[in-house]
């Protein structure tokens, strides 16, 4: 993985000193609440319902075990013993003390981590495929480009006061595992006409109040032009994006208002002026970055049958929680943070330490975070899978539910977030209680439930196969249900099935939807495929039937 050099260390240390100074000025009364707000947000610090919340950047979801142990240390020393992984592959702490946040940042700096631009109207943490570098279908590893983007976007002098937040995702595989089509910019690595590496560039995707799938504005961008093209997009947006209404300020609204063609023309015009400046990436630099992400010295191992003679629980875990690896004899292991009864994405300090030990012992000394709030051990020898399962089970991290209904994405909701209209964690609990029969979940097949406590859509509800959105109705928590959304290669936005349902009815409503699915599916059809085939109507009729 990337290692800091003197420049990176110096910059992060100076950023910690700057934030310490800003915090002291606020605590001394020299900065008002309003003046401090944009400063703390640029360092990932929110003031939430109960306490400040600190969001720590996990660049493109990659962590060393040393970093994981530091995250555990922070949870113990400054929080209540746990952290929460987010849909931006970051980690949040919900209970720090404001005056201690500078110390947390100083601790993070010792392991090459920070909270720079994890919030605020600036370029946020760049996300990537959590199987980067190990996916068999990968065209090129996205992480070197993500690191190049991370550095370019960090404290970018021109783009720190954008109209609104700005999110970039990069994927290196045709299968989109980074929800790149619902990002402000989505970059897809591909090979151009002469076999050279470059990007398909999507702009203007996003969720929130106005969900939109991103538009392709360039079919092929040679990789050496990555930064100049990004800079051109950002400059057009910084100049022309709306600043009068925060709900109309994302780049998706600008692309829609200008029209795709006019927006593309504006970007191309700007790009022509800067494409051959210092922003041009040369092969030497790209190769230097690629060296940080070199493949491991894998052993030559055959694929083996690891399930023969093993107990059913292991077989189920193997089937649902491990994934194919590009090197024979290896598997990628999904670490489930979706234990029933625990808030999705939450992890205790003990689990973090235990997982770090396991990753050192049995994998590559790295842990990856996913945008659906799980973790990954990327390089496990198949012969070690049984032991891995045993150890993960002991840590409470082996629930065999990845990809099932129980593997929900969920924002913190009303329990923690001051923006939320309704709770989401309690709904997650209601659903896991109702659907506790794991064999039923296996029978339902791949099913993505995504849940947000308000229309800011941190839980990506628009792109859930089943989406759940918390709304406030006369002071009560109600939930609007959508079906048919997807964030994969064939992205689509879900359709609302009808009027929102009462809090206690959410799991019952899901049960009705799933009954319809089970009764009309053909052969191996998934829930999403059935919705796409038959539309919303049969589901709507069942849910809102007068005698249900």
């Amino acid at each position, binding site marked *: 993985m990337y290692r800091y*050099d003197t*420049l990176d260390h*110096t*910059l992060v240390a*100076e*950023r910690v000193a*700057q934030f310490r100074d*800003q915090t002291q000025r606020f605590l001394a009364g020299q900065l008002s609440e309003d*003046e401090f707000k*944009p*400063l703390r947000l640029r360092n990932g610090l929110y003031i939430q319902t109960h306490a400040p919340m600190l969001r720590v950047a996990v660049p493109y979801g990659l962590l060393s075990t040393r970093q994981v142990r530091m995250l555990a240390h922070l949870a113990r020393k400054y929080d209540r013993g746990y952290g929460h992984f987010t849909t931006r592959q970051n980690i949040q702490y919900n209970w720090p003390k404001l005056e201690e946040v500078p110390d947390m940042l100083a601790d993070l700096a010792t392991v090459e981590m920070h909270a720079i631009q994890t919030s605020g*109207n600036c370029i946020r943490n760049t996300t990537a495929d959590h199987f980067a570098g190990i996916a068999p279908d990968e065209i090129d590893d996205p992480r070197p480009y993500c690191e*190049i983007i991370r*550095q*370019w976007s*960090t*404290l*970018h*002098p*021109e*783009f*720190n*006061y*954008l*109209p609104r937040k700005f999110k970039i995702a990069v994927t290196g595989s045709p299968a989109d595992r980074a929800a790149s089509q619902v990002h402000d910019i989505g970059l897809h690595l591909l090979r151009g006409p002469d076999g050279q590496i470059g990007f398909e560039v999507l702009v203007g995707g996003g969720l929130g109040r106005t969900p939109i799938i991103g538009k392709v504005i360039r079919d092929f961008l040679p990789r050496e032009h990555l*930064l100049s093209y990004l800079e051109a997009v950002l*400059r057009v947006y*910084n*100049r022309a994006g709306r*600043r009068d209404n925060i709900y109309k300020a994302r780049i998706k609204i600008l692309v829609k208002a200008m029209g795709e063609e006019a927006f593309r023309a504006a970007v191309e015009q700007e790009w022509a*002026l800067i494409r051959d400046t*210092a*922003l041009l*990436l*040369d092969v*030497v*630099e790209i*190769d*230097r*970055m690629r060296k940080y992400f070199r493949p491991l010295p894998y052993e030559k191992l055959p694929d083996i049958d690891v399930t023969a003679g093993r107990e059913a629980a292991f077989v189920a875990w193997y089937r649902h929680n491990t994934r194919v690896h590009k090197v024979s004899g290896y598997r990628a292991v999904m670490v489930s943070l979706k234990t029933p009864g625990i808030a999705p994405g939450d992890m205790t300090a003990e689990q973090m330490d235990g997982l770090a030990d396991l990753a050192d012992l049995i994998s590559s000394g790295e842990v990856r975070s996913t945008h659906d709030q799980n973790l990954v051990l990327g390089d496990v020898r198949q012969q070690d899978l049984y032991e891995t399962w045993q150890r993960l089970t002991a840590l409470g991290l082996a629930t065999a539910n990845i990809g099932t209904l129980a593997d929900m994405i969920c924002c913190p909701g009303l329990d923690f977030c001051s923006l939320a209209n309704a709770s989401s964690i309690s709904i997650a609990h209601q659903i896991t209680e109702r659907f506790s029969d794991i064999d039923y979940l296996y029978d339902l097949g791949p099913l993505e439930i995504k849940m947000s406590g308000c229309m800011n859509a941190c839980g990506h509800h628009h792109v859930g196969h089943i989406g759940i959105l918390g709304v406030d109705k006369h002071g009560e928590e109600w939930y609007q249900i959508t079906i048919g959304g997807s964030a994969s290669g064939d992205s689509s936005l879900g359709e609302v099935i009808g009027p929102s349902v009462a809090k206690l009815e959410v799991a019952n409503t899901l049960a009705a939807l799933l009954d319809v699915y089970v009764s009309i599916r053909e052969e191996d059809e998934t829930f999403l495929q059935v919705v796409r085939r038959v539309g919303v109507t049969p589901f709507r009729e069942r849910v809102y039937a007068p005698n249900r």
Partner: protein
Amino acid sequence: MRQIVKHRQCQADAWSMPGEAAAAAGVVVSLADYLAVQAGTLASPAPAGAALGVQLEPADDEAQLLPFAAQLQLVVVNFPKSAEGRGYTQGRMLRERYGYCGELRAAGAVLLDQVFLLARCGFDAFDMAPSENLTLAATELDRFSVAYQTVVGTVVQPHRRGQVG
């Protein structure tokens, strides 16, 4: 007299801003007025011997100043709110694209914690928000000793480091 930070020093401002009585040293007018004076359709409000400067608002297109970049001595970029970000682009373009070498001043709701990034976009003078301490603002210009981006003649860019180191 108005105090500003200019070339890292706190000093009195010799110019008058739009709406103020014309100063002997120089008078700043809006972009529309500046262009009208240049086109000969408006008499210059500057007293004899005084220079004429221009103030850009966030929606103004700084490219219109290209023909006058060599003769201008002061361009003021107004930030009506501290969250306003268009001025960062205006400043950078004036310096990098249009070759403007005169004083580039950020004015309005300019806060202490913004002068470092503004300076990286080419600003060399700051007419700060009334709440701000000018001496502290001057020291903020040294907040970071390194940066990742090559802009307006500062530090090495990371993707060049491979060759340099």
